[in-house]
């Protein structure tokens, strides 16, 4: 990754962000507002339902939602990155991975903005500060690489099969319900719980809740699972992306 690639990524990211909000008055503030509103809605509906099993429900939900939202935005936008930029792809001499990478970075910047909302909520609910909170960036970094790897794979698939987009959106719905985003895991039967524990996104979310909400160290098995998933998917993505360069250009 040389300086020029970095510059291109910067320009692409700033383009995406400006584009995203080019028609709205509030602009980037939506990145902060959106998770807050979503949290308000979900809390309104589920707070009383899960009052007994989850304390600080809004924080519980928001912790998961921010990670989930970053992950879905990153992968969804990275998926179409090659097809959207086909005019540019033929011109650049840079590694073409700058396109999915820029999309994932854009989603990440958005996510960083929404952390401002998160901080306010943490203060509002008087979540006590613990040193474990400092582990949160490590978790975010692993989500980043996980999303990047998957985004690269999806972007290649999307060039060849436009349908991937629709398939993926269905898959995401299923995935969301399997991530214990807005309900307590203990509510489910044993077998289902075991299944959900294998879900990488659930690992990320559970680890984040441990660090922030419960002030405890996530288990070693969770760390291992997160690291393996993010490294594995990232490497798979990089490998598949590199392997299909030539065919992508032909297809576009």
């Amino acid at each position, binding site marked *: 990754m040389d300086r*020029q690639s970095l510059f291109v990524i910067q320009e692409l990211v700033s383009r995406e962000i400006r*584009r995203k909000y080019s028609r709205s008055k509030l602009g980037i503030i939506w990145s902060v507002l959106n998770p807050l509103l979503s949290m308000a809605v979900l809390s309104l509906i589920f707070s009383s339902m899960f009052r007994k099993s989850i304390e600080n429900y809004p924080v519980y939900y928001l912790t998961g939602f921010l990670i989930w939202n970053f992950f879905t935005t990153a992968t969804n936008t990275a998926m179409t990155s090659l097809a959207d930029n086909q005019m540019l*792809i*033929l*011109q650049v001499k840079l590694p073409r991975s700058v396109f999915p990478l820029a999309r994932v970075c854009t989603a990440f910047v958005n996510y960083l903005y929404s952390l401002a909302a998160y901080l306010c909520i943490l203060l509002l609910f008087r979540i006590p500060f613990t040193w474990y909170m400092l582990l949160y960036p490590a978790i975010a970094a692993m989500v980043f690489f996980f999303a990047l790897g998957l985004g690269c794979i999806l972007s290649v698939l999307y060039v*060849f*099969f436009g349908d991937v987009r629709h398939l993926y959106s269905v898959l995401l719905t299923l995935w969301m319900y399997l991530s214990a985003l807005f309900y307590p895991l203990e509510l489910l039967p044993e077998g289902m719980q075991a299944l959900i524990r294998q879900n990488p996104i659930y690992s990320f979310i559970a680890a984040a809740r441990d660090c922030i909400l419960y002030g405890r160290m996530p288990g070693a098995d969770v760390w291992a699972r997160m690291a393996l998933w993010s490294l594995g998917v990232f490497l798979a993505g990089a490998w598949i992306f590199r392997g299909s360069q030539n065919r992508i250009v*032909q297809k576009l």
Partner: protein
Amino acid sequence: MREERVRKGKKRERPVISVRNVSMFFRVPVENTSSLKEFVISMAAGRNRYRTLRALNGIRFDVYKGEIVGIIGTNGSGKSTLLKIISGAMTPTRGRVVADRKSIQLLTLGTGFDKELTARENVYLNGAILGYSREFIRRKYDSIVEFAELQGFMEQKVKNFSSGMVSRLGFAVATARDTPGILILDEVLSVGDMFFKEKSGKKIQEMIHSGATVLIVSHSTDTILRNCTRAVWIEKGIQKMTGDPEEVCRAYIEYGKKRGGAG
């Protein structure tokens, strides 16, 4: 001027671009399956057949420093594919191209502009993609705007621009670089209105005179005759003729007439 450039003595140097027996085959599915469902169905039915499209077949020529080579051919004859291979965007099926990829600049217009962004933002984005550094764009910004004659429009979104304005801006950004070692022009010699055409023509002449090697792709004999020192004619992926632009263009026109008569 032209005679000077074709001097036989030049031919003994090492070529800056060497196209060596380049072939490009595409596997084109007989039925276009762009959806996964169709793909699976046709695979299950065992009829995912491909036919091979020979986009380029054994193309070979050398380009020497300071030459202006025109590639001519009808639409769909494989010119653009050849350009993509020379500029490094594609790897050929067979053969190879030897060239210093760093000094090649492909000039195709209107590509890569984002209509939702302002002209200024587009200059930076496009410049970055063309390989300019941030400092370079900042330094050249005023001269780019001036050349494109878009003073006072730079903070507007490109979607409000006329197509002429867009291509002027594209031309100005793409030619901002001081001396591209090798310049590849893809049908860009007729940009903008009459007056800008003159100006862009002059700019291209300037680049040519600065010692750049130029590769022009066109389906117009006019362009080739006016600018080139040598011409390569490609028809349906096959290299028909290489040599003096006048001879090549004459043969090309002859061929066009015959084909038109037959059709």
